[in-house]
């Protein structure tokens, strides 16, 4: 009897594996395989076409101790992540709370605010290059109306990264959508009870709304942190393939791409990608460890 059940279970397991076989195949061949290969190749001078000699940890040593641009690019990327992640998260929550109010024309506003998230890619960057133009751009013209002498945005190394962060803020609509969905899931009864107890709107927001949407905040922070480290296109397009003034837009992935496809030092680029992987991995682990302290799941019993 027992044996039969075991067999049945095994059989079921086997069928399960067969069903996910396409995914397993894809994962092994297109994800795990290349991942492993890049780890191996990061210890070589691989350049795709002519050489792949084992050179020990040379690439890593060079990166960490002898490459000033590596540190420049890492600093630029950290700067960008440190500001863009909190700002876009706060911006998205703020917008979604506003758009969760019951006012006429709500759908219209939601559409308007979501629109920038639909537009993406090179077109948007070119648009922003025009908007940020110090002389003729709309942003400085707008600031001029209030008597503010706008900065040189993409031409001033102090302002290049803030320019990109500003541009990112424009398209918080994507995150807003997530928050909006979770805001709608907060039970009305909680607010009613709080109101009866005399809680103010602000208290309701801090003690009901925020805790209830923490799972989404957590998800958003983790994904945008990972995404933030991978910033590439923006810098590539908006600097015409340079690093921006004083290399202020030389981001990590962009520098890596240069090493891989301009200089053909693929081994070096792979070593860079592994360092980035370790950084992101550690940060994500920290995130996951901290999560139980502030992320609240509905129906979860507090330990």
């Amino acid at each position, binding site marked *: 009897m027992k044996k039969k059940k075991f067999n049945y279970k095994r059989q079921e397991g086997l069928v399960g594996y067969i069903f996910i076989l396409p995914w397993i195949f894809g994962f092994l061949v297109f994800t795990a395989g290349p991942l492993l290969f890049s780890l191996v190749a990061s210890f070589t001078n691989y350049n795709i076409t002519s050489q792949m000699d084992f050179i020990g940890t040379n690439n890593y040593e060079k990166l960490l101790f002898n490459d000033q641009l590596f540190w420049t690019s890492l600093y630029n990327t950290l700067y960008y992540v440190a500001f863009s992640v909190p700002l876009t998260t706060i911006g998205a929550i703020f917008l979604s709370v506003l758009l969760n109010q019951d006012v006429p024309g709500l759908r219209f506003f939601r559409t308007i605010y979501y629109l920038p998230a639909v537009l993406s890619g090179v077109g948007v960057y070119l648009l922003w290059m025009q908007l940020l133009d110090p*002389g003729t751009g709309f942003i400085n013209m707008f600031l001029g109306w209030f008597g503010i002498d706008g900065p040189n945005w993409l031409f001033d190394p102090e302002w290049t990264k803030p320019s990109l962060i500003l541009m990112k803020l424009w398209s918080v609509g994507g995150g807003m*959508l997530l928050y909006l969905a979770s805001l709608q899931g907060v039970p009305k009864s909680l607010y009613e009870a709080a109101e009866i107890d005399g809680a103010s709107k602000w208290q309701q927001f801090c003690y009901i709304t925020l805790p209830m949407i923490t799972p989404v905040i957590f998800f958003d922070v983790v994904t945008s942190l990972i995404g933030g480290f991978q910033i590439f296109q923006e810098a590539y397009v908006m600097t015409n393939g340079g690093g921006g*003034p*004083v*290399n202020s837009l030389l981001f990590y992935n962009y520098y890596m791409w240069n090493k891989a496809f301009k200089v053909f030092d693929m081994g070096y680029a792979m070593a860079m990608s592994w360092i980035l992987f370790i950084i992101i991995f550690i940060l994500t682990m920290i995130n996951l460890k901290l999560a139980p302290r502030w992320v609240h799941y509905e129906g979860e019993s507090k330990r």
Partner: protein
Amino acid sequence: MYFYFSIIQEEENGLIKKRILLSLVAVMLILSGCAGFQVGGDKAKTVEAEAEGKVVVDFWSFWGSEIRRPVIDKIIEDFNKSQDDIVVKHTFIPWGDIWTKELAAIAAGDPPDVVINDINATALRGEKKQAMNLSEFLEKDDISERFYPELWDATLYEGDSYGIPFNTDTRILYYNKAAFKEVGLDPEKPPTTWTELEKYAAKLDKKNGNTYDRLGFYPLFGINYDVWMLNASGKNFVDVEGNVEVDTDVNQETLNWLLKWKERYGDNVVNSYKSQIDSQQSNPFFTGKLGMFINTPTFYTQIRDYAPELDFGVAMLPEREPGNGHTSWGGGFVAEIPEGSSHPEEAWEFIKYLTDKEAQEYWAVKNYDNVANVEAAEAAAKSSEMSEKDQVVYQMAVDNMEHTLLTPTPLDAPDFPTLINPEIDNVMLGNKTPEQALKDAQAAVEQLVEENK
């Protein structure tokens, strides 16, 4: 957008989901259907050609614009008709993708047979065994004499050529003749030295309060600091042996000279002019608001299209001091055979045709582009299809080739500009002195060379 929110609100409603899924599938089917059709068309052509016993040469270029594409397609058609053994198939790949795709194809062992690539990095691709060593073909028919020597030299790695020059460019000085007359300068005597350039610019300046109604000249419009340093020293920053010459007296002098211009006009004037030039909508040179401007000879086609009435002349770049040389800077593209091509012999035949006088002259005249073939370039300048003004500018470009240097990518420091550029930026922003910046740049590039040796 309404549609997005309804998905969320009615997430439970499987029907809508299903409908969206179905329409997605339909779209995918239509798209894949189109792709299938295209592939089928190409395949049919290939199969047909093979049935006739012809070899198909796969040719990749990034010339997809409505101006360039018909010209290259006509050249290919002429080649296909000129013989019975080879059929060239042109594949257009966008500028941003072509070389990474080529690299992937080489790595996969199934590359195209001819690709248009950057001339300055030819040796680098030769060293990395991406491009094929063409010496076996050149031993049989040496066509190196066809081209400007500077271009040919840029294709060499350890003495062997890895790509055949196709087109090129250079930098020349455009000046507004009407403005010259207005301020009493001889419109037939453009400035020949840096000192004259400064003097003429001062005369042409027309100040109006804080701004300028006309700016005489600014050296960093149209070109960068590196061209001026090349013009002054006649040398690249890193030579073939890996010697770094960034921190030199000449470069320091040049940098100081550039700073002087910036101080004279001020950041605001420079930035506002620069953004007009970058926007490519209203170049101040077209409207007479900029007296002199340095750019490529093909910039002339923009004048022809947008400011046909402009009375202008062209000249060589001024020299630092008399006798120093009017050195200018150029680049260009080569036709190369990727390593692993299955039909190198046939590819070579096509490259020979592509860089021969007839095809090159046709390309030069139809595109108003500088070509690598000397005879073709000289013939194009006299072509009856060009207007008088076309010919004058083209002849200037041809004459300027003698003074034009290329900046081939040094094998020991292929990405050295990323190290020099920020230092120069710092100088222009007033954060560093020229002495310090050049010293730091020199050290950084030397270290890069050291590590790559």
